[in-house]
Structure formats: C-alpha cells, structure tokens
C-alpha cells in the first residue's frame, strides 16, 4: 500500500480528493494539507514530518499543485528512496494513482504512470476529436 499526501494552496487538494471519492464511490486513503497563505510553511513541515513518521513502513507520494509553489518547495527536501513528490497533480493523475495505490508496484514506476496519466489528461478537445474523425 502506497500512502499519499496532497498539499496545495487553499483547499484545492481536499476538493480534488472529494471529487475523486464521489466518482469512485469510495473513501480514499489520501491525506490533505491546505497551505493557508499566511504562514511561513513551518506548520506545513511539521505536518509532513508527522505524516512520514506515521507511515514510515510505506512508500509515500506527496502530490502538490504546482512546481515552484510553496507546497512543492516545502515537500522537496523530503524526497528519498521511499518518498517521491509529484507536482501539478490533476484529477486524471489522482485517479491513476488510486487505481494503482494498493497494487505491488515500485514507487519509481508508479510516479511515471501518474505523470503520464496527468499529462494525457490535458486535452485540447477540438484537436482530439479532430484526430478521431
């Protein structure tokens, strides 16, 4: 079981998890941290440390909303052999993660699958449908 934390500006991550739960009709094992804009990130670091301590037996993926933003910057120092950070997560990427979360899969392989799912989830629909016709 790969554990996951989603850290975003505001409640973007919490909402994304709720939408995924609605689509899949099940409770998801993804924790959420909302970056409250005001703080300096210290509280966020403590929350990440708590999450990692609690899940030290597991591989962990931290999802953040945007590369270079505070949630991603604060998460980056935690990257290691059992922890990956994926920025720019979107709904397709998150759904991809959920479908593999409980499977036996290497962390490095899973983050590549999620990255591909998230990127492929961005579509200029007119071009896509044009190609299909």
């Amino acid at each position, binding site marked *: 079981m790969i554990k996951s934390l989603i850290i975003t500006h505001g409640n973007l991550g919490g909402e994304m998890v709720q939408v995924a739960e609605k*689509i899949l009709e099940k409770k998801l094992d993804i924790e959420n941290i909302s970056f409250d804009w005001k703080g300096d990130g210290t509280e966020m670091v403590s929350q990440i440390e708590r999450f990692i301590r609690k899940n030290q037996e597991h591989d962990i993926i931290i999802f953040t909303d945007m590369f270079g933003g505070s949630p991603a910057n604060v998460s980056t120092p935690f990257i290691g052999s059992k922890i990956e950070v994926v920025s720019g997560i979107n709904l397709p990427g998150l*759904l991809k993660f959920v*479908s593999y979360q409980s499977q036996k899969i290497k962390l490095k392989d899973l983050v590549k699958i999620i990255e591909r799912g998230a990127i*492929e989830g961005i579509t200029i629909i007119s071009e896509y*449908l044009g190609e*299909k016709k």
Partner: protein
Amino acid sequence: MTEKTLIILNKLGLHARAAAKLSHLANMYNSDIYLIYNEDKINAKSLLGILTLAASVGNEITVQAIGNDEKAAVAALGDLFTQKFDEEN
C-alpha cells in the same frame, strides 16, 4: 473470445462516474476486457481509458472479453449498460 455490441442508454454517456463503475466491474474479472468504439480499442479496466472514448448516449460500444470468465464478464457489463449505469432508474 466473447463479444457483444451494446448501446449507451444513459443520458450522460460514458462520463466519469459511469466509467468508474464500468472499470470497477471489469476489474472483478480475470479476463482481458476491451471496449471497442469506432477505431478505438481500450482496456475496460482503465477508468481514464474509458473516458478517452468520449462516447455519448446512443453510441454503440462493443465489449470484448478474452479469458476463463469472459462470458460472465460480458454479461455483467451488458447488464450495467442496460441498467443505464443505475443513473436513471
């Protein structure tokens, strides 16, 4: 190999929640299961794959299953289509 052509009856077509139900059901079977729509053939066990079909109400989709439980799989998926993915009952 077992195949059956089905018509999408629910108004919203193969949207996110319907695709989630379909992939969830497909994952309960050992067989390889595919959905064929126009020239596209996708893995029915992949939610995102199903969404790429962009299939709407009235469209015909062929379900194809290959494996030891292929008949049961095609029957179950067929029921889901017939029941309009439990959306309009």
